[in-house]
């Protein structure tokens, strides 16, 4: 019988207007990997934030090793040996890796000054010990999310945590990175007998790594069961409360015109380094072209170039065969491009604005939503808003609700709803289901496929190979700013894609030379 390490006893958390957790009882055993799953807004993060001392529960108690623990602040939690890797990274972009790792308990010299050399040494050693590849001197802002994640984990380990909480660690990771992460986690548990709590929306991950799994719904803990006894179907039902059918997506035969084409385009990233050198491909109506690639190989910039958000340094860009000279966002929108950006919070939405305002963006100068040139036609606007809320089943109080109060899954639905409602011939979609729960993911996939079947040309960028392989008709792999391969979906395996994504193989040699 495993020994109990943490016991949460009927924890409740009331936010203004929302009961985020209600009478949750959860037990974590020593040395186990415990998965927590649930829909967006189910209360997972809140519960963990309570355990980590970020929120004070409105009710309930926490026991660690059978003793009642008072955790009023993260510091208390750290002292209790708890460490948390947060859903949204908690790293200071302007500081170096080392500075971030030791933040909060820095090594000192002359007991007043920060000892940088020591910090760097510490970080090096830690990284070696756990087999991470990171340069302690690099600034965070220069790192890919994958690496940033490792820094987060180093942070936790540096503070000597025995209990690691990982909130959606894989949401932003590539398959390779996910595998690496899981290896680390297993190592931590087996070799260093640490205990891990992991939150994720991806069931196959749960089944792959966890010993036990707890399911939350609407703030309540529905149940905990050993992973052996679980499968995707059971867990989904527990999460959603009803059966979700994953029938295959219905794919119609559509053969459309070539609507978008780029020839040998080049672009620089924010630091002025070339991240796209000579990318060429074309996109037909009624097809989904998947772009597979490890984060940071230029796919983000590719999307920004195509949507006019980043300037095109070199190369040609055609839409419906016409060469585009003035590439800017409003122009591209007028040319019929819709865009689901990879980062909804900084680009896809205005958190402070209401639902209707967020859904209006892009139409505010178009009839019938504006009349007499500038007058906003609220009646029409609200009509549309409410329809979209229904159609895309966005869980919100009303059309006036501020978007920041929605859960991530619903935030994403807002973006999808807006962009899809334009009925644009071209859709450029990046990371459509990042951090989104199963139900919502299924819903979004169906919407994308619907668009395709209606004859839209869709460029799909995703770090999730499964997603790409489920939706795409064709797949191109991108590595270090160049296309390394192109495949018909059915004719390629994950493994092969992996090779091309990591540059280990390259069909179109020579495209790199220019």
């Amino acid at each position: 019988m495993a020994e109990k390490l943490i016991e949460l006893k009927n924890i409740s958390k009331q936010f203004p207007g929302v009961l985020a957790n209600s009478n949750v009882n959860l037990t974590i055993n020593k040395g186990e990997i415990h998965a927590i799953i649930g829909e967006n807004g189910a209360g997972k993060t809140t519960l963990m934030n309570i355990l980590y001392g970020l929120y004070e529960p409105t009710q309930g108690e926490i026991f660690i090793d059978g003793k009642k623990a008072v955790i009023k602040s993260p510091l208390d939690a750290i002292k209790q040996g708890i460490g948390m890797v947060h859903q949204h990274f908690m790293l200071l972009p302007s500081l170096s890796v080392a500075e971030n790792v030791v933040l909060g308990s820095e090594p000192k010299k002359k007991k007043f000054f920060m000892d940088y050399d020591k910090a760097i040494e510490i970080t090096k050693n830690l990284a070696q010990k756990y087999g991470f590849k990171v340069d302690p001197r690099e600034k965070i802002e220069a790192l890919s999310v994958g690496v940033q994640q490792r820094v987060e984990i180093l942070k936790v380990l540096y503070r000597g945590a025995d209990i690691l909480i990982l909130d959606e660690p894989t949401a932003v990771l590539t398959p390779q990175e996910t595998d690496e992460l899981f290896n680390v986690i297993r190592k931590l548990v087996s070799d260093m007998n640490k205990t891990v709590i992991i939150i994720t929306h991806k069931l196959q991950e749960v089944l792959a790594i966890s010993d036990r799994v707890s399911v939350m719904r609407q703030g309540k803990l529905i149940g905990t069961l050993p992973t052996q006894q679980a499968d995707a179907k059971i867990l989904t039902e527990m999460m959603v409360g009803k059966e979700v059918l994953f029938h295959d997506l219905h794919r119609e035969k559509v053969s459309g015109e070539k609507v978008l084409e780029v020839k040998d385009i080049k672009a620089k990233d924010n630091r002025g380094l070339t991240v796209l050198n000579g990318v060429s491909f074309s996109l037909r109506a009624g097809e989904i072209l998947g772009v597979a690639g490890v984060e940071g190989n230029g796919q983000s910039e590719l999307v920004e170039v195509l949507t006019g958000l980043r300037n095109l340094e070199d190369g040609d860009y055609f839409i419906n065969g016409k060469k585009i000279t003035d590439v800017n966002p409003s122009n591209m929108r007028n040319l019929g491009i819709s865009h689901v950006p990879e980062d909804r919070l900084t680009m896809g939405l205005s958190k402070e604005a209401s639902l209707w305002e967020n859904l209006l963006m892009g139409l505010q100068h178009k009839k019938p939503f504006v009349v007499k040139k500038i007058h906003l036609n609220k009646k029409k606007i609200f009509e549309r808003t409410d329809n979209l809320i229904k159609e895309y089943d966005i869980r919100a109080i009303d059309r006036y609700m501020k978007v920041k109060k929605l859960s991530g899954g619903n935030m994403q639905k807002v973006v999808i709803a807006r962009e899809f409602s334009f009925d644009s011939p071209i859709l450029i979609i990046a990371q459509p289901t990042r951090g989104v729960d199963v139900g919502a993911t299924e819903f979004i996939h169906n919407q994308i496929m619907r668009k395709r079947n209606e004859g839209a040309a869709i460029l799909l960028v995703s770090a999730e190979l499964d997603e790409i392989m489920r939706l795409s008709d064709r797949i191109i792999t991108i590595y270090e700013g160049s296309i390394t391969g192109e495949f018909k979906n059915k004719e390629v395996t994950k493994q092969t894609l992996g090779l091309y994504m990591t540059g280990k193989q390259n069909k179109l040699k020579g495209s790199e030379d220019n």
Partner: protein
Amino acid sequence: MKQMLKEIFNLTLLQHTIRTATPIILAALGGLLTQHTGMLNIGMEGMILLGAFFGVLGSYFFGSSLMGVLLASLVGVIIGLIFAIFVVELKSDEFIVAIAINMFASGLTVFLLRSIFGVKGAFSSPDIVPLPRVNFSFLENVNFLDKIFNNHSIFVYISWILVALIYIYLYKTPQGIWLRASGEYPEALLTAGVSAKKMKYKSSIYCGVLCGFAGAHLSLGYLTLFSENMSANRGFIAVAAIIFGKANPIMTFIAALMFGFFDALGIRLQVVGVPSQFTQMIPYIATIVALFIVTNRQLQKHKKSKGERELA
């Protein structure tokens, strides 16, 4: 012509520069701390004024300028605390709180001026003990060093030392890192087990103290009197210096000196017959021009370095 330039550009110009810059430097050093914790503090105007008044009060009653400074800093602590409570705890708009503090300060000082000293407008008295002046004998034998750097009021030198200290504090100590972090990404700091609120409080209190110094220097070092609203917009100039210096102590220091320099220049140009309205504009226009040049250069550099990376 040559004669005229001689009359303008002489050692007194630099003395004047240093004197005028000092109160701005002191206040700006405080303001840049709150700036780093994410609070733009235009309440420094009022904080300086209070410092000036309580400096005089302390010096007058205890017959010691040190007591004046202590009292001024004490009041600074209190006002800093109030600012923090409203901005950090009650999440009030820092502009409004600052404006309120400025109103409060100019009201309160006038009120106390009359209820304590029984005068309105201004109070000066031989019993106000001024801050000591410092004289380095080793400088005396080099004339221009002597002229420029010798026998200023003590806070002139303190302000220079503080520039260095605060620079070290911000960039070389854990505390400094936390302080900056609390502005850049409070949640990150919090999850690392350090209270961002606490750092914001600290910065606000430091700011109060430094503005207290600025005020005390104004009323006990620069002058030996108190007069209504004698802070005369130095708080706002300090804000400008901070933004100009991107809240970096050294850059801010330079910005303040620059302002002092052009102020001195303005006054001297008047003596050679430029209409006063225009000479008094000089510091303000100069600041804008300087900003333009600096930022432009940065933009150019950015472009250039981009190019270089290209080749690499």
